């Protein structure tokens, strides 16, 4: 049996290497797609800094606080503000030229400061293009950070804080609340008299409670390596997609062999369906591994991808991924009746698996339900395992869970294929 399995696998390798053009295409296509995505998603030049989101600002408020707010917004890493008139903002967002516009209404600054004490916050108008709702979320987050910082500081320091407290005392009719505010003002005055009033130069006082310092959690040790980490994810994901497409080709060749009588001819030699499938599985696994190795090797040589984790873990996950894709090919061949039928459906299945498995976009970008579903997609485990070994700096132990999942999927796919071929 072993000799027959080896003979079938060797034949598959001979067939693969015999058609040099097809062989090169099977390797070059995933490399080309991964390179393209790598350049688009992770700009070269040693920086992985995210692109700022262009944001239109309509400044209807002309108060002194607005200048400070704008200066703070300009410091934000996430957005690229541009001051425009309301009409222009509305038109550009409507056309889709810009994803988000923020309108600061007249009196916004003063109202925002008072709102710290009177619970009457002014409204900030955000216009957005529905096709860029992700931009809206990012801009809203960035605004919250910048505005909170400036408004809290302006509203809770020095004379401004005293004015706001006095205004709060006058505006409330609730005796208990009035007494509470008066107690707060008294404490404030004591603090001011002792020289500890917030906002006085050199004294300090109430200010923004924290600052955010972002740090990319990769094993990368410099900005070049940081950019390469992003590309490593792209090459891992699209490498897996590439070998899944190879698996479709392998399935089509098996269906063709059935159609022209090769399957029956091989079976006539008293070679069992299981032996044929094991041989085909072995051959396809080796070829898939070769393709994946070439894709990752190209990424390392041309794109600066590094193995920050364990090489052994990388090898194990790559081998398990190759086995999973080979058995996926057998599954496709066992379920399909004709090449034409199967090709379309299996391409759709591969694209869905690649998308849901995080080969195209990181999984965290997807809705929660999809993230849960993705656990049932083998591509997710392949990409996660490769990511861990390539750029997360994962050791051998981090390969265990993805490898077990991939082996589980392989057993499932191979089992269904064997059952289908035997009962055919």
């Amino acid at each position, binding site marked *: 049996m072993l*000799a*027959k399995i080896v*003979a079938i696998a*060797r*034949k598959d390798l*001979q*067939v693969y290497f*015999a*058609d040099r053009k097809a062989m090169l295409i099977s390797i070059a296509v995933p490399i080309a797609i991964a390179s393209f995505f790598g350049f688009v998603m992770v700009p070269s030049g040693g920086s992985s800094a995210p692109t700022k989101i262009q944001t239109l600002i309509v400044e209807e408020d002309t108060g002194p606080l607005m200048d400070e707010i704008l200066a703070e917004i300009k410091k934000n890493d996430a957005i690229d503000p541009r001051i425009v008139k309301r009409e222009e903002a509305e038109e550009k967002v409507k056309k889709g030229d810009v994803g988000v516009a923020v309108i600061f209404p007249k009196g916004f600054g003063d109202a925002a400061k008072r709102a710290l004490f009177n619970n009457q916050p002014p409204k900030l108008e955000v216009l957005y293009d529905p096709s860029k709702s992700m931009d809206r979320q990012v801009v809203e987050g960035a605004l919250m950070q910048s505005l909170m910082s400036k408004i809290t500081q302006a509203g809770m320091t020095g004379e401004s804080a005293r004015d706001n407290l006095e205004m709060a005392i006058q505006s409330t009719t609730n005796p208990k609340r009035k007494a509470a505010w008066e107690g707060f003002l008294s404490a404030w005055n004591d603090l001011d008299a002792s020289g500890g009033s917030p906002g006085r130069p050199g004294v300090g006082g109430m200010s923004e409670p924290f600052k955010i310092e972002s740090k990319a959690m990769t094993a990368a040790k410099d900005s070049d390596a940081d950019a390469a980490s992003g590309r490593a994810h792209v090459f891992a994901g699209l490498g897996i997609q590439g070998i899944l497409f190879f698996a479709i080709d392998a399935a089509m060749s098996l269906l063709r*062999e059935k*159609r*022209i*009588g*090769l*399957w*029956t*001819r*091989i*079976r*006539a*030699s*008293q*070679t069992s369906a299981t032996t044929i499938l094991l041989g085909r599985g072995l051959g396809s696994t080796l070829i898939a591994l070769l393709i994946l190795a070439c894709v990752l090797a190209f990424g390392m040589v041309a794109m600066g991808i590094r193995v920050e984790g364990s090489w052994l873990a990388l090898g194990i996950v790559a081998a398990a991924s190759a086995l999973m894709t080979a058995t996926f090919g057998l599954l496709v061949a066992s379920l399909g009746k004709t090449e034409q039928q199967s090709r379309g459906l299996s391409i759709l299945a591969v694209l869905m698996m690649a998308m849901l498995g995080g080969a195209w976009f990181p999984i965290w970008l997807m809705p929660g339900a999809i993230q849960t579903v993705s656990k049932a997609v083998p591509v997710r485990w392949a990409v996660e395992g490769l990511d861990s070994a390539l750029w997360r700096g994962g050791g051998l132990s981090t390969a265990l869970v993805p490898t077990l999942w991939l082996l589980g999927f392989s057993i499932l796919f191979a089992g269904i294929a064997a059952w289908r071929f035997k009962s055919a």
Partner: protein
Amino acid sequence: MVELNALTKSYGRIKALDGVSFSVEKGSCFGLLGPNGAGKSTTISAIVGAIKPDGGTIAFNGKPPTPAARRNLGYVPQEIAIFEDLNAQQNLAFFGALYDLNGSKLKSRIQAVLTQVGLQDRANEPIKNFSGGMKRRLNIGVAFLHDPDLIIFDEPTVGVDPQSRNAIFDILEALKSQGKTLIYTTHYMEEAERLCDRIAIIDHGRVIAEGTLDDLLATLPARYRLTIRFQDAEVSTKAKEALARAEIGQVAEMGDRLQIVPTHVATSITGAITCLQRNQIPFEDFHTIRATLEEVFLNQTGRSLRD
């Protein structure tokens, strides 16, 4: 050597085999003749073990077929079932490995097969560069690489030009002369007539007639036809009326000629000529032709073999 007894196989509601029975003598060539979809390929698949029949039995040399017994047969599929991207040598080496051939034995068998199918000079050339006839020959060569006693051919000449067909017949005749037992399916009656010692006619999954060519022709009302050609259709019509009155057999008019299925060949020939002379009807041509398997099939089913 091979015996099939009441073999049945259904695919859903379709009965592919409906009680197929026949036996094949060692060293003979057995023809399985029938139209497309008659059940020939299903019968072959059951013999080689690629499908499991629903009922009935198959015996090799009087015993149920074991895997070892089945390894002593070679199978030539209807289509060219070889790997086009590999060369002839690689193809033969692969199939040899499936039959546990290796080392010098494998090499010598590859050489012998390549020589027998006339491809010894093209051994290292990719199959995709071969002509259709060359591929067909290699397709056959793969089947006897492991030197089996029984070789089964599933319509090996479909879509083959006459020259290549003759080359294939030469290979088959050589195999037959080596004492191999051959089972040959075809829907070309001429091939069955030329190659086969015994023939089974199969239709709708059932063997409707079986025997030697003579046995099968003997099932017809007459084994020969008389064909008489006249100057034109008008003379032909006149002759038909005269011959019908003479009661020498069934007379059918086909343009300027008549075809007669005689009640008795010898007397019908003299009777027809005498009748025409007596009625002073001249004829251009007169000959007898032997009945064919086509007519046997027509006689048994009421349909043409090529329908």
